[in-house]
Structures are given as C-alpha cells and as structure tokens.
C-alpha cells in the first residue's frame, strides 16, 4: 500500500495527530505529510492542562510534543488555526474554513472530542469555562486567584484535578455532581470514596446528587442555582461533565459513526483511504475481547498513531498494550491499567488511610484492571498481569507483603 500513497493529510493536531505525523516519518514514509488543526499552536500534551499548566508550574512551550521548528525539519507541513469543514471523498480533498482545500491519498481523522456543554441557562456568562485546551486555561486564569469562589460542575478526573490545584492555590472550592458519588463513570465506589475523603480533608465542599439548573449573573457569573432552588456563590465555574467525540466531518462524509468513528484493527474507516485515531475513533480493542470501544487517553492516542502509521507504511501492526491512564491530585498519583467495567469483585491491597493502596478488579478469576494510588509497583505489576490474561491468587493480591514481582512469576 505504501507505494500508492504519496500524500497523507492529518486533520486534528492533538496528541494523536502529532504522533501519527512523527511515526510516519520514523517508519520511513517519504511522501508529503500535512498536519492540520483548529488550534493555532503545534500539538501539545493535554493532561497537564488541569494540573501543572493550571498551577502555572509548566509554561505552554514545555507542553509541546515537539518544538514547532522540528516539523519543518522533518518536512511535515503544518496548517494550524484552520478548521476542516468538508471531506470530498470522491475527489479526495478536504475543504477548510476560508475555502482553502488540500488533497490526500490517505486521510487521518484525529479530531478528538469537545466538552459537553452545560444544558443550563446562563452557561454562556463570562466566568463559566470548560477545560479542554490551553486557551481554555488561559481564559480561566484571571479569575483563578486566591480567595475566589470556584464551583466545579462534574466530579470527573478533570474537575477533581482542577479542584485540587484550586485548593493548593487558595481558592474556595465547591464541587457539584449529579451522581451520588464522584468519579462514578470511571472507578469503583471504594476508590471514589477515597478521593471524596481526600478532597474533603483538603477543604473542598461536595454537593452530590445535585444538579446545576441555572447560572446566575448579569455581566459575569455570580452564582450557580441548583434544581432545589438553592444557590452557591461563584466567581468562576468550571464545567467538566464529559466530552462528545468530534465526528461531524466523518458523519457528513457518510462514514459509519457509532459512539465515535468506526474503524477496523488497522484504524481504517469504511473508506479504505480514510483512517481515524484517538478520542474520536471507536476501534476493536483486545482488552475487551475485540469488542468496539472508544477510549479517551494518551495511551489510546499513541497506540492509534502507531497502528495507522504501520498500516500506511506497510509495517506489521504493533502489539496492543493494556489501556493505561493517570491522574494527579494533591500528593496522590493515581495510576490505572485495564478497563474496570464489568468487574464482579474488587480486592484492596494496602489501607486507603495510608494514602497508598491499590484496588484490583476481577471478572471471575481474571484480573481486568487496577487503580493504584501512590503504589507504582501495583500499577505496573497489575498491568503486566492483565497483559498476560493472568488469574492471580486473590489472597496474594490482597497481601502487601507478597511482592508484585512474585505474583508475576507465579
């Protein structure tokens, strides 16, 4: 196939788009590569946005995957700050805002996700923000000052990470969550309870099973009104209630979209010239027995890029890695391997009171996922066990005196 492809066009310059451009060159692809994105800057790491970028510890140029000048050095043409609006599959061209068009032999869609908008009146008032891009964080900064009252809507990882940085910066923080517990979609009640306690101890107020009905204010946000009629004062609101895959271009082009752009094991859509990777794509995942899944993570962006770079250059597909994730909150490093959905038993190792423990998720006798808080050996050991499809002895998993290494060789 490599012989037929002279021009690769990548739409979306996030981590997946940036990685696929680099990996094509690393695989020896000598044709044209054009990397396009609607943000005006080169691909950068998003995870630090709600952590060290929000805290001011890392400046933007430290987040870039590569310095801007390296794209030119690798003959990767960049086209930043322009939004793609139409894929003409017959002519194999993509149209951008402002009527510009670019041709392709292979197209890679890496458009990511957009934040789910808050369905409440007043959500467009100044001071109400989402946290997806560096520009979003820059917009948050003027109100992100000690003493300010911040309300976070949605207790997912982004919201809780922002809450942690806010407390460390000296803001007054209230977290509103519609579910009865934080992190409801992404972890077990055991681990969620630990983070609830950790944030509460750090001075965060939680309002669970609570829904924001209206954002009040005249020239800017003043308060968040709840469904029960009460209100919480706010100088700043961060909305973190999940994301929606950016599949509009693919849908308009007639590609199959079902919770993400549907691709095969090589990252191909139902048009053989068009690939999709990263948060916007749904692919068959070895970790769930080959079923279709859409992941939102760095691991998934990198793996998608490796798979598609291999497919385009005719190299063997990489071995799929167990999905992994992380979250930093206060002094707590949460490291996650595997997908916990469908577990029937959780095994704790270590005591959450020590701020260092792991939760292992079992499905039958098989280990399917681990959440490790300040326990890197449990994370990496657990990840290796999951990769092997192992059925470790639950008694040994629960016993912190049995080294993880010993479980791996058992």
């Amino acid at each position, binding site marked *: 196939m490599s012989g037929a492809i002279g021009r690769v066009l990548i739409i979306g310059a996030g981590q997946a788009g940036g990685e696929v451009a*680099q990996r094509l060159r*690393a695989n020896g692809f000598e044709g044209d590569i054009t990397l396009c994105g609607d943000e005006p800057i080169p691909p950068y*790491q998003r*995870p*630090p946005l709600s952590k060290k970028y929000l805290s001011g510890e890392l400046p933007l140029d*430290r*987040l*870039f*995957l*590569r*310095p801007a000048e*390296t794209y030119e*050095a*690798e003959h990767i043409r960049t086209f930043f700050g322009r939004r793609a609006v139409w894929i003409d599959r017959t002519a194999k061209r993509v149209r951008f805002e402002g009527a510009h068009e670019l041709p392709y032999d292979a197209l890679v869609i890496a458009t990511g996700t957009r934040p789910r908008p808050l369905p409440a009146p007043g959500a467009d008032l100044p001071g109400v923000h989402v946290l997806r891009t560096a520009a979003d964080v820059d917009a948050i900064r003027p109100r992100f000052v000690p003493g300010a009252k911040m309300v976070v809507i949605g207790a997912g990882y982004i919201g809780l990470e922002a809450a942690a940085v806010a407390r460390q910066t000296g803001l007054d923080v209230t977290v509103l969550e519609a579910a009865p517990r934080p992190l409801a979609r992404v972890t077990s009640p055991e681990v969620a309870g630990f983070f609830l306690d950790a944030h509460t101890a750090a001075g965060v107020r939680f309002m669970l099973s609570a829904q924001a009905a209206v954002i009040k204010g005249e020239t800017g946000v003043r308060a968040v009104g709840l469904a029960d009629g009460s209100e919480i004062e706010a100088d700043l609101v961060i909305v973190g209630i999940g994301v929606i895959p950016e599949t509009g271009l693919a849908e308009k082009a007639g590609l199959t979209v079902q919770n993400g752009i549907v691709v095969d094991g090589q990252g191909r859509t139902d048009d053989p010239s068009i690939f999709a990777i990263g948060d916007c794509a749904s692919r068959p995942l070895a970790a769930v027995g080959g079923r279709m899944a859409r992941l939102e993570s*760095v*691991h998934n962006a*990198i793996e998608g890029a490796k798979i598609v770079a291999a497919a385009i250059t005719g190299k063997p597909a990489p071995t799929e*890695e167990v999905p*992994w994730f*992380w979250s*930093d909150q206060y002094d707590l*490093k949460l*490291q996650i391997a595997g997908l916990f959905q469908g577990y029937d038993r959780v095994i704790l190792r270590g005591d959450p009171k020590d701020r260092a423990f792991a939760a292992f998720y079992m499905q039958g006798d098989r280990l399917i996922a681990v959440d490790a808080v*300040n*326990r*890197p*050996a449990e994370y*990496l*050991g657990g990840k*290796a066990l999951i990769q092997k499809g192992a059925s470790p002895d639950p008694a040994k998993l629960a016993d912190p005196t049995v080294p*993880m*290494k010993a479980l791996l060789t058992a």
Partner: protein
Amino acid sequence: MPKITYIEHSGKEHVIDVPAGMSVMEGAVKNAIPGIDADCGGACACATCHVYVDEAWAGKTGTPSGMEQSMLDFASEVEPSSRLSCQIKVTVELDGLVVRMPKSQH
C-alpha cells in the same frame, strides 16, 4: 547551556544542549532522539523513558525516589545505573552528562 550526550542502543551518539530546568527526558524528546518514548510526557506514569546513567555521573544525578525505583523495578533490562530520565532535572552541574538507552522501552 548544559550539554548532554545521549547514546542509542545501536551506539549512535547525540550531543544536545539542554536548558537547565528541563528534564533529561525532555532534552531527548524535544530533539527527536529515538530510544526514549516518554509516552506520559514526564508524569512518572509510564516507565518508557528508561536510561542508564554513565557511572561517572551517578553521584551528580542523585538517587531515584521510591516512586521512581518502584517503576524501574518493572522496566526491562534494568541495571544498577538505571533511571527514568523524566526524573533527572538538568542543572549546570550536569554539563557533560552521558546517558545510554536500553534496547527497548516496552
């Protein structure tokens, strides 16, 4: 600016100026040196930026934290000189540092 020598597993050397304050990992990634993946970008979450610190420099780069050591225990081809390069901060004292890369990060 401190100069750092990165030696690929194949023996290929890269001498790079890395600003003080950056990590040894960032110096490699930002200059597209193959052999350091650093999938997580320096969050100490992936153990794919494993390097061997040249013996002569072991005293100046310090010792791994408990978190780093636990991650290293699960890296492949670990040696006593193994470090995660995202955890080594470049300082003027590290001018001339030499690090070698393992065969694979995975």
